[in-house]
């Protein structure tokens, strides 16, 4: 970073005759210099982000209008999009991503909210609460491959989960969780994803719960509201904005989940767990169908972009008016 001082020889000297104009010029020069310093500070990071996110994103859109034939890119217009809309596997992947994301989101929310409410209980001392909170966030720090492997071991034919199911629930044969029925495979993926992702909800909701002024509960109690009523009329409205924010972000992350499918089912059985991200990966990277993969990717991007823009609008509006807590 260039050192910026007010009294180096770099600024024009102020003469006695033209003192006022000199000072104005001098402060103007300082101002420009200050501005330049600011821009030179943010430039490296911004150039980096433009080169490695904005440019690839634009290339994805551009590639979706082209096709690679005999080593040359030819413009095909909306051909790939038309192809996608007629492609039953494209629609299959849309169905799969919805079947994965919606139940996962509901589970993340319910489990995250449940743990947050429990952690917020009065019987917890601060130390115990932080300890419990620490244990319960732990799954969140793990990578998808690491947790996929942990769960593959648990769900193994002769693993503990199958032991419990076979012995205690009286099933006759071990259950192939990830390779049996499509529905079971999808449920297993949702369960594993929930294990990885509920802490995000839990932490943010817990933060929200602790920000609710206790007076509100006291007032509700005075008015004779029971626990359930207090939850519905005090807790939920107070958490509304936070729940909206965390659900939106989690929707995008869960929607974009690729590793779990790639590692555990590879889209099977019967391509029923082939979510749209996996379909992009499969057509674009594995099959080398770059143009078509980009078209599917672009459609996915546009969908997510709408959601992100709405979310960011809410975020910035909340920041300006100070109405919302995020």
């Amino acid at each position, binding site marked *: 970073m260039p050192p910026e001082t007010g009294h180096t020889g770099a600024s024009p000297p102020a003469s006695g005759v033209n003192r006022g104009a000199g000072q104005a010029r001098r402060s103007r020069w300082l101002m420009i210099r200050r501005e330049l310093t600011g821009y030179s500070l943010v430039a490296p990071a911004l150039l980096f982000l433009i080169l490695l996110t904005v440019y690839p994103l634009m290339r994805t859109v551009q590639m979706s209008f082209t096709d690679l034939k005999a080593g040359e890119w030819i413009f095909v217009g909306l051909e790939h999009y038309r192809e996608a809309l007629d492609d039953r596997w494209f629609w299959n992947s849309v169905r799969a991503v919805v079947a994965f994301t919606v139940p996962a989101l509901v589970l993340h929310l319910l489990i995250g909210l449940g743990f947050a409410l429990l952690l917020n209980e009065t019987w917890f001392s601060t130390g115990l609460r932080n300890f419990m909170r620490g244990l319960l966030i732990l799954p969140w720090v793990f990578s998808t491959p690491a947790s996929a492997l*942990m769960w593959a071991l648990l769900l193994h034919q002769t693993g503990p989960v199958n032991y419990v199911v076979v012995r205690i629930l009286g099933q006759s044969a071990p259950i192939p969780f990830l390779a049996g029925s499509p529905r079971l495979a999808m449920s297993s993926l949702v369960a594993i994803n929930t294990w990885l992702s509920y802490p995000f909800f839990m932490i943010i909701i817990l933060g929200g719960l602790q920000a609710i002024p206790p007076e509100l509960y006291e007032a509700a109690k005075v008015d004779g509201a029971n626990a359930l009523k207090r939850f519905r009329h005090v807790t939920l409205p107070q958490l509304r904005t936070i729940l909206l924010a965390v659900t939106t972000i989690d929707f995008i992350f869960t929607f974009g989940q690729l590793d779990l499918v790639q590692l555990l089912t590879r889209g099977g059985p019967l391509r029923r767990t082939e979510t749209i991200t996996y379909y992009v990966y499969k057509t674009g990277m594995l099959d080398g169908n770059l143009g078509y993969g980009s078209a599917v990717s672009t459609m996915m991007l546009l969908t997510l972009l709408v959601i992100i823009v709405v979310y960011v609008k809410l975020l910035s509006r909340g920041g300006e008016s100070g109405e919302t807590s995020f």
Partner: protein
Amino acid sequence: MASALGGFGRRLGVQSYFSLYGLLSGLLMFAGVIIVLFPIAWMVFASMRPLAETFGSPPAWIPREVTGDAYAKIFSDPRQLRYQLNTYIISFSTAILSVGLGALAAYGFSRFRIWGSEFILLTIMALQMLPGVSIIIPFYNLARSAGVWNTYLGMIMADTVFALAISIWLLKSYIDSIPTDLEEAATVDGCNRFQALYKIVLPLLAPGLVGTGTFAFLYAWNDFVFATILRNGHELMPMTVAIGNFFTQANRDWNAIMALNTMATLPLIAIFVFLQRWVIEGMTAGALKE
């Protein structure tokens, strides 16, 4: 603090600590913790005992025979050591690069007037939220044509892209909280701006830098998709990919892979225990704007 569901016990006339409700929620919490931690414990157990115990029927819930064979195996195999080394190289470099670029940008956004800064910051956050898969096709081409395919640099840059956004946001909120007066006072005392930055801002920012670095480190440590497409062969393979490859192997050595998986997760647990606050701050950065 009053709770959302509390008060059942009190209405039954039992006092606070040993209320029925407190007991129930405590039990529920305990059960939850067991369920959540069981997969981790099972992995660690599997890495340190004979396979017969893990896959036996009934399975041994607590290890009876402890053996270090699996660890001896992965620590004597140069390839397995290489996976670990690669992960450390990529993660540390990503942390340094994201914190370096992020701190400069955050200081710029915090202390200088940047045209459209609100818009730029929100765009950065929005881009960071997009799934990595949406850019992997051009990313792969870009890496190939720039000559960084199958290099550490390629993977580090890919990981930095996603860690950088969070770094800028976290560090900006940090720098915002350091009063400008401190720098100005130092300037009056004869420091130039650079010295003021070095002597006043940097020490105050140090915890923020460590925290942000931790977050970037975790991000790179856990990356799987970019490490899969941006390299080839075993030389630069990080642990996540080695673990992922296990799923495609015909001869599965569950013992050794569980040892590697433990080596891939223990540092995360350690980081988490010591730097919990930072991990939480990083994970909530996108959802809670201060």
